[in-house]
């Protein structure tokens, strides 16, 4: 590893002062070299300071489950942009600019991400006056010009019961030349609220970062706190968390499989999956009373234990859901009209997925073997290894198949874990957080890699808490998947990614 890249591991805290401070050139070169060697940006963020913004970049090294972190101080309000050389840095740089007021020189798309005020009042990268409202979605959209080229704008309020976002299509007839996606409508200011935390509300904010990923984000937060407090979660606690995480994956994958079927007009699978998704949510409710896993996780383990009766109930429900889901999904592969719509639609090539730094099922559908449970194992996944399924076409069909394969493996995992639940406590008591530490906590949510980075100050409070939802890496992937497609294929492509708006907007 390069000198300025300091090694660290998922879920282990290191002293922040131990990370050597690189100068700007060395910092940028470290990132570029790492990308050249097949590493990628997991998280890249700024910590606003008195005179300079401290930039911290976490890079993933696929060998040996190792991560690397590098930092620098960016003074003077300007910093060179990497976005032209390294597209996966594009959104991260805009986010840093918006939060910390740092201007990235020569950034090709230098515009706001979420349309909010900077962390430090007065340090605005676009010199927007402090007294005036920031109109959301108003920015300089990329436009295609020429005869018969037209623009289609959709959102923020969409046709179904879904979250708000704004989409601009540049079309030539039915064909989409380009799609630009503008977010920020769901911005609740979560990262700004986290300074000086953890607060009494912090766990609730973590559970609602993306409400359909309560366990994925909740576990990442718990891992970060546990590393900072030096807690060791018991095996029983880890297994219960693992079961909840896989139930969350199953519920959402099932819902997506049904929704994909619905978007191609195949109602049997759509109807069946809509109901079976509820069966998985109700299994989570057996664990903790909430269908979304609210109140299950706590730093130190789980709030609830599992009784023998509940375990048997879950095993019975799982067997029924598996039978129903298998029957519903098998229909897809045997229906030519469905396959005809899925195959070859919304393709993201392997090269594109690598370049954008995509994660989760969408990356695996393009042939990238990338899964936190496998590459940077955490919790029970250190002990039990789930096989990673990949496909290579990168189209809607591949993203559909990946979901079904993962669902099957999750069901196997839950069944196995329920039958061999370790005895002992499910929870340990918490203790105060260590001062001056940095921890990277990554989990594999159903959408992909979730990364939380916590840095504590001299008193053990959060000097910065950074959240990266998998959607942050993958929204540009959806935009690229639409290039050259019919605009009428957008709902189907969108559903095959099913990315989070609130997880992106924070």
């Amino acid at each position, binding site marked *: 590893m390069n000198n300025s890249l300091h090694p660290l591991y998922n879920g282990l805290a290191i002293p922040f002062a131990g990370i050597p401070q690189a100068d700007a050139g060395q910092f940028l070169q470290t990132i570029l070299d790492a990308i050249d060697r097949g590493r990628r940006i997991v998280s890249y963020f700024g910590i606003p300071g008195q005179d300079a913004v401290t930039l911290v970049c976490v890079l993933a090294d696929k060998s040996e489950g190792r991560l690397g972190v590098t930092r620098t101080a960016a003074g003077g309000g300007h910093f060179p942009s990497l976005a032209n050389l390294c597209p996966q840095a594009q959104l991260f740089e805009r986010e840093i600019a918006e939060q910390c007021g740092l201007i990235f020189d020569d950034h090709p798309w230098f515009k706001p991400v979420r349309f909010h005020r900077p962390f430090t009042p007065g340090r605005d990268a676009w010199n927007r006056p402090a007294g005036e409202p920031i109109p959301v979605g108003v920015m300089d959209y990329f436009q295609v010009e020429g005869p018969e080229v037209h623009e289609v704008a959709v959102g923020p309020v969409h046709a179904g*019961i879904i979250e708000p976002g704004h989409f601009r299509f540049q079309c030539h007839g039915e064909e989409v030349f380009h799609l630009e996606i503008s977010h920020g409508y769901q911005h609740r200011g979560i990262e700004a609220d986290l300074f000086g935390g953890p607060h009494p509300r912090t766990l609730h904010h973590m559970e609602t970062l993306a409400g359909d990923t309560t366990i994925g984000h909740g576990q990442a937060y718990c891992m970060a706190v546990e590393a900072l407090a030096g807690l060791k979660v018991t095996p029983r606690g880890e297994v219960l968390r693992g079961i909840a995480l896989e139930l969350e994956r199953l519920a959402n994958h099932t819902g997506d499989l049904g929704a994909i079927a619905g978007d191609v007009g195949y109602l049997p699978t759509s109807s069946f999956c809509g109901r079976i998704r509820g069966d998985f949510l109700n299994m989570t409710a057996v664990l903790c009373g909430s269908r*979304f896993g609210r109140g299950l996780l706590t730093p130190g383990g789980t709030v609830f234990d599992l009784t023998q009766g509940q375990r048997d109930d879950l095993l019975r429900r799982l067997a029924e859901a598996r039978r129903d889901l298998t029957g519903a999904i098998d229909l897809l592969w045997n229906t030519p009209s469905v396959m005809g719509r899925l195959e070859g639609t919304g393709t993201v090539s392997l090269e594109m997925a690598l370049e954008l730094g995509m994660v989760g099922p969408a990356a695996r559908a393009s042939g990238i073997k990338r899964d936190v449970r496998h590459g940077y194992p955490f919790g029970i996944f250190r002990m039990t290894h789930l096989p990673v399924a990949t496909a290579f076409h990168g189209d809607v069909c591949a993203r559909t198949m990946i979901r079904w394969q993962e669902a099957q493996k999750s069901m196997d995992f839950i069944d196995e874990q329920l039958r061999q639940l370790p005895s002992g406590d499910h929870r340990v008591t918490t203790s105060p957080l260590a001062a001056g530490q940095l921890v990277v906590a990554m989990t594999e949510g159903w959408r992909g890699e979730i990364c939380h980075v916590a840095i504590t100050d001299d008193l053990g409070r959060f000097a910065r808490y950074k959240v990266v939802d998998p959607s942050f890496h993958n929204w540009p992937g959806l935009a690229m998947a639409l290039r050259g497609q019919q605009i009428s294929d957008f709902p189907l492509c969108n559903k095959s990614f099913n990315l989070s708006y609130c997880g992106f907007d924070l």
Partner: protein
Amino acid sequence: MIRALIARIRQGHRTMPYPAAPLQMPERFRGYPVVSSLERAAEEKDEASPCPYGAYTAEGGGCLDMGKCLFCAECSAGTVEFTTDYQLAVTRRDHLMVGPGADRRHASPLPPDLLRMFGRSLKFREVSAGGCNACEADTNVLSTIGWDLGRFGIQFVASPRHADGLWVTGPVTENMHQALLTTYEAIPAPKIVVACGACAINGGPYLDSPRVLNGVDSLIPVDLYIPGCPPNPATILDGLLRILDKLK
């Protein structure tokens, strides 16, 4: 085709008999609070760890605001306990206050003129204004075959122009403020408004965050409040059936 028919037979008829038969809630579901536990919490009041949302106050022998309550698994305000009673929806904001001596409230039917108009066909336009996608998901689930919302004449529609009411989830972020009002204005009168979930009622986990507006009723009048974070589909359906006077 034959495979689809066989699969259909195997899956069976799965629409639940509710409301003809009662619903079975999960053992650990947290619904209506145990009133005696509110009084107990008032006596053992622990100043050190109040509810971070001010949902519980010790005044008057213990009062819980179900509009602010997130129904936490471990109530930081003390010994507040919850029953599995999911029937929480009400038509007035003050009916969400639970305490000793307070009447058990449910949503009341719409006024007769609205009931005549919407009683057999009620269409909603949903707007997620900062929601985390949990309220949205459990609203969506009502349209699946298990709940089959359509059998009650209720449907979610794509355009506000086709709607009789606005269905709001989320704390109303600054960035959704205008879009929410524009959607409301686009719905032809008379119209009703539903605040679904703790966020839409009072800001939920984001209460008093500088980027949110603490729920929808500061902006437009609300006709149905559905508490929970998120509300269980059973809680949502209970509220809907009650305002349409379909629950006897």
